[in-house]
């Protein structure tokens, strides 16, 4: 009788451990790869000083390890060095509106690759500022006063990872885990000093 009780307890313990394994850390990851799918050769001839119509080929990678299915949005923003970027400490995104978004539903442990081929189509130079006025991203034109930078130096593409928070019913940029805030973003700097 004692044996049956002990055996039941042991079996139940093993079954519980099998059915409810300790939860691993929840996280998203995002990265940028260069033209050859590696973390190198991000610009033609490895020169971030871009000329007009120079094609830049990147691949964005997004990985979901949140332990559940996720609705993710990659927001692409164009900034210069003085516009505030995302803040990891406070978990706030850059205040700038995105020029482009990529959206997808990712299963747990799924990786998503996004081709991001772009080139500068038009620049205009003022007194000391160079304004990026036309871009092409994945063959789609983006026109307007997109962003300006002093002498065309230090533009940056910022890629922010947002996700749909089921609890709040809205997109969120940061999440809490282990009593700390987490957010995911990455950026790439470039110069555009060659004006028409």
């Amino acid at each position, binding site marked *: 009788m004692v*044996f*049956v009780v002990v*055996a*039941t307890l*042991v*079996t*139940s313990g093993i*079954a519980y451990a099998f*059915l409810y394994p300790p939860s691993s850390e929840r996280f998203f990851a995002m990265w940028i790869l260069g033209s050859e799918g590696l973390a190198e050769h991000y610009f033609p001839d490895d020169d971030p000083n871009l000329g007009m119509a120079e094609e830049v080929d990147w691949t964005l990678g997004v990985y979901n390890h949140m332990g*559940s*299915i996720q*609705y993710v949005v990659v927001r692409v923003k*164009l900034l*210069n060095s*003085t*516009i505030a970027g995302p803040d990891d400490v406070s978990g706030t995104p850059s*205040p*700038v*509106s*995105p*020029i482009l*978004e*990529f*959206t*997808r*539903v990712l*299963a747990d442990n799924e990786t998503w690759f996004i081709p991001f081929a772009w080139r500068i189509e038009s620049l205009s130079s003022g007194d000391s*500022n160079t304004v990026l006025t036309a871009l092409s991203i*994945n063959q*789609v*034109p*983006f*026109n*307007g*006063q*997109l*962003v*300006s930078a002093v002498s065309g130096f230090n533009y940056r593409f910022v890629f922010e990872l947002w996700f*749909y928070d*089921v609890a709040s*019913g809205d997109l969120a940029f940061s999440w809490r885990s282990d009593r700390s805030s987490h957010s995911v973003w990455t950026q790439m700097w470039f110069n555009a000093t060659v004006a028409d």
Partner: protein
Amino acid sequence: MLILVLISGIGSIMSTSASEGPASTSEEVTASARQAFRRLSVVCASGSTAPELVAKLNGALELVQEASYERLKGDEASALALEEQARMLVEEVTSGIPAAQRRAQDESMIRTAIVILSIPVVVAISALVFFASVRAWRWYEKTRFFEMRIVEKKKEVD
């Protein structure tokens, strides 16, 4: 000061350039896609994966993306057609969710039943192994106790 003016100017310029064209249809489809995802996440949380519904929802989101591209290129007609296709896909996802929910519940019940049934089976197997082991050990000891060996003594050499 100049920088502040520049930042605010850029902010307003970018917000206008990024929101060109009518986005109400696109926003409606996106909103319904998010609602579909909300319900789908409940299904997936109960242990199912529903890959066909996830694939359809991703198809709808891609169509919305393509529609925004077409709108940026100035092709409003193509954008509307793509958004209509996306809306239909989202509706298919939404209508498929109750069946997926039922399937998830069934799968969950089967898993629970298997676990509950497996406990007495494992206990029975453990008891069987235990008693068989005890019996085998006793038999082994008994055979060793009654073991007879013929040991040949060496003859003493005078």
